[in-house]
Each structure stands twice: as C-alpha cells, then as structure tokens.
C-alpha cells in the first residue's frame, strides 16, 4: 500500500488545491439532504404515540449530538497525528473544526433542553448524557480558548493538539464516571433515553438529516481549513498566485 496520499495530506498546498472545488458541492449536497430530512421529519413523519409531536426535535438533536462526538474524535486523532508526525495540516484541522464541534455540542444541549421541557417537565436534568455533552462542550471551549490565547503559533498548535489528545483519552473516562455517578444519584429520574423501536418512516428522515449534517459540516470544515491555509502560508508563492489569480 502506498503512503503517498498520507504525506501529500501533510502539504497545505496540495490539500488546498485538491479540496478547493469540493467544499461547495459537499455543503450544497449536505444542505439538500438536511432540509429533506428535516422537512420530512418535522412535517410528514408519523406522530409518536407516547410523546406526540415533541419527539420531532430528534431530527435536530440526534444529528447535532452525533456530530459533536465525531468532531471531537477527529480532533483527538488530528492532535495525535500532529504530535507524532508533525503534519502541518493537523493544527489547521483542529483550528477549523473545534468551533464547529462546539456549536454542535451547544445545539445538542439546547435542543435537548427544549425536548426536556415537554417530556420531563424541566429544562435541565442531570442526566448522564446531558452532563457528558456539557463536559464535551467545555472541552471544546478549552481547546478554542487555548488556541486563541496563546500568541506564539507553534505553542498554540502544540497546546491545542495536546489538549485534544488528552481529551480523547479522557472522554471515555468522563463518560463512564458520569454514567456511574448518574446511576448513584439519579436512579429515580425518568429514563427517556431508551427509545422505542422506530418505524421506518421515522428513522429514514433521521438518517438523511444525519448524513446531511455530516456533509454540511465537512463542507464548512474544508472552507475554514482553506482560509487558514491561505492565512498561514501567505508567504508562499503559490498562495500569492492563487489569491491574485482569483481576486484581482
């Protein structure tokens, strides 16, 4: 197996030129899927016999929560790649994806709270899942904060990579501890996390909106990475060509 693609990935120039035309199609395709999934889910999917219409928020909540976790996983991997192989693209990826992940975690939290009001009767429950998403959100904010506060870019990159890796190692421990803690303290609260088996008309739109959101995020991430590449490599001649050729 050839590792050439891996080494090429490390080159911002190659990455930029290769992905330049990808961001928009990914984003548009994702948007179409997402809208399709949402409209289907919110307007046409059957009503839940227990929760009525309020369950429909899962079409936002579940994709957001999944993305929040996937983004974090990818940050941890990128951090590891940076620390081991010093790949130049890894910190750019972390820089680009961390805020997206934070927004996803926040969306999951807010939609969870909105869902919680009609079903649990309260905006917030110290449920294991909610708590661990909250911690996830805090981890994201920590990475963003350290990236933005440290002025030396080499140090900032290394710091963000270290914290991402550390977070990835820690995430299962945090999840386990919160779940354990939850069973000790909150044994009596409602457990709505066990969903009844869904009919196809319910999960199909969900699947479509999940895929859609993944694509949207991928498009956004590529855009953000491309602008970081241009910013960071602004001294390189190919960047000058690229910008002048397109803009002036």
């Amino acid at each position, binding site marked *: 197996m050839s590792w050439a693609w891996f080494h090429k990935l490390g080159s911002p120039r190659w990455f930029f030129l290769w992905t330049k035309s990808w961001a928009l199609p990914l984003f548009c395709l994702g948007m179409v899927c997402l809208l399709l999934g949402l409209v289907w889910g919110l307007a046409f999917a059957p009503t839940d016999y227990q929760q009525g219409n309020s369950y429909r928020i899962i079409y936002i909540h579940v994709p957001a929560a999944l993305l929040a976790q996937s983004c974090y996983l990818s940050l941890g991997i990128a951090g590891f790649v940076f620390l081991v192989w010093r790949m130049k693209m890894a910190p750019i990826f972390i820089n680009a994806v961390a805020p997206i992940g934070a927004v996803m975690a926040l969306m999951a939290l807010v939609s969870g709270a909105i869902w919680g009001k009609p079903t649990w009767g309260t905006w917030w429950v110290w449920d294991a899942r909610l708590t661990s998403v909250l911690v996830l959100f805090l981890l994201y904010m920590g990475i963003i904060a350290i990236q933005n506060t440290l002025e030396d870019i*080499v140090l900032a990159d290394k*710091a963000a990579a270290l914290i991402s890796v*550390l977070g990835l190692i820690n995430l299962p421990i945090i999840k386990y*501890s919160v779940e354990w*803690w939850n069973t000790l303290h909150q044994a009596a609260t409602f457990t709505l996390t066990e969903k009844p088996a869904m009919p196809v008309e319910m999960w199909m739109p969900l699947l479509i909106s999940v895929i859609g959101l993944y694509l949207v995020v991928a498009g956004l991430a590529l855009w953000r990475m491309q602008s970081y590449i241009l910013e960071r490599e602004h001294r390189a001649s190919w960047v000058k060509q690229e910008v002048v050729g397109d803009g002036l």
Partner: protein
Amino acid sequence: MTYFSYFKAEFLVLLRRKQDVINALLFFITVIVLFPLGVSPSPIFLAPAAGGIIWCALVLAILMAIESMFKEDYNDGSLEQLVVSGLSLPLLVLLKILVLWSVIVIPLLLMLPLLSAMLYLPEGSFWVLVATLLVGSPSLFLIGAIGSALTVSLKQGAMLMLLVILPFYLPVVVFATGAIKAAQEGLPYSGLLAMLLAISLLSLVLSPVMTAISVKASVN
C-alpha cells in the same frame, strides 16, 4: 546538574517560598468555610456533603498551587537550563511534581481531621477520605502540570489553565466523592478507589512526557 541536585534545589526553593504553600492551604480552608456560611451550617446538610465539599476545595486549591509551578523557572531561565541539561526532561518534570505534591498534600492531610470534624463527616468514612486523597491527588497534580506548562508563557494564564484543566478533573472528583458517599452508606467502595488509582497511574504514564513536550513548546 544531576537528578538529585535538582530535586534538592526544588525542595529548598519550595521551603524558602513557604508563603506560596501556606496561601494554597489558606485558600483551601476559605473555600470550605464558604459552604456552611453560604448553604447551611446544619449537620443534616453538611454531613452527607462533607466529602464533596472537601474535594471541591481540594481541586481548586491544588489548581491554584499548580498554576504557577513553572512560572518562576520560566522567567529566570531555569526552564531553558532544564531543557539543555542533557538529563531526561520528563524525569525532571516528574521530580518537580513529586516535590510539589508532597509539600502540598502532607499539610492538607494534617488539616483533614479538624476540617472533617467541622463539616460533621461521619467518623467511619474519614479514612476513606484520606485514602481518596492519597490515591486521587497525584493525578490532579500530574494532569495540572501539563496545563501549567502550556500556559507558563502567559502573564495572566490562571483563568485559561483553570478552564482547560478543570474538565479533566471531573472523573477524579466523581469517583473520590462517590467512594466517600459509598462508605457513608455502607456500600463497597474499594472499586472506586481502584478507579482513582488507575486514573493516577494512567496520568503518571502520560503526564511527564506531555508536560515535557509542553515545556519545550513554551520555552521556544
């Protein structure tokens, strides 16, 4: 420089700077005092909450003590000297953490009987509290050292370091307070102590290397 001469000098520096250590201990006591005053002084509230209160205060006090652990070394050039000493940087870092841990945790242990009596901690769970402190606190120092090394170049790094490191402390707090609570309710708690020990061992493996990377990136 040798490992031993470094260890000795670190110890001496901390002894000469005893006010820093005393400040951390005073901060610990002050946070504990907040709870009876702020929530309720009645034993009905305090007795079950005692373990949690002590651990919350502990985490904050340790974070404050660790935040500046590399600051002076960074400013006076000692950190550079460690990097170029030809000795293993992770090991030097580990020695530094060990010195700080012993200087902070031993006085904390001595204060615990008084503080737990003031919070009406049931006598039976006192030794569990001591055990959680002994097996849990190393991980707090080890994880904190990474954050401290990363933020050492900042003039106002304390808030950032707190923000970044505190989420990593949550499992330790959960298991430690859980063990104390389990002991109070007569449930088995040895599994939780084992979890704490496992977290401490994991951080013992990871932290010196990661802290060394952070130190190198910071003196850059």
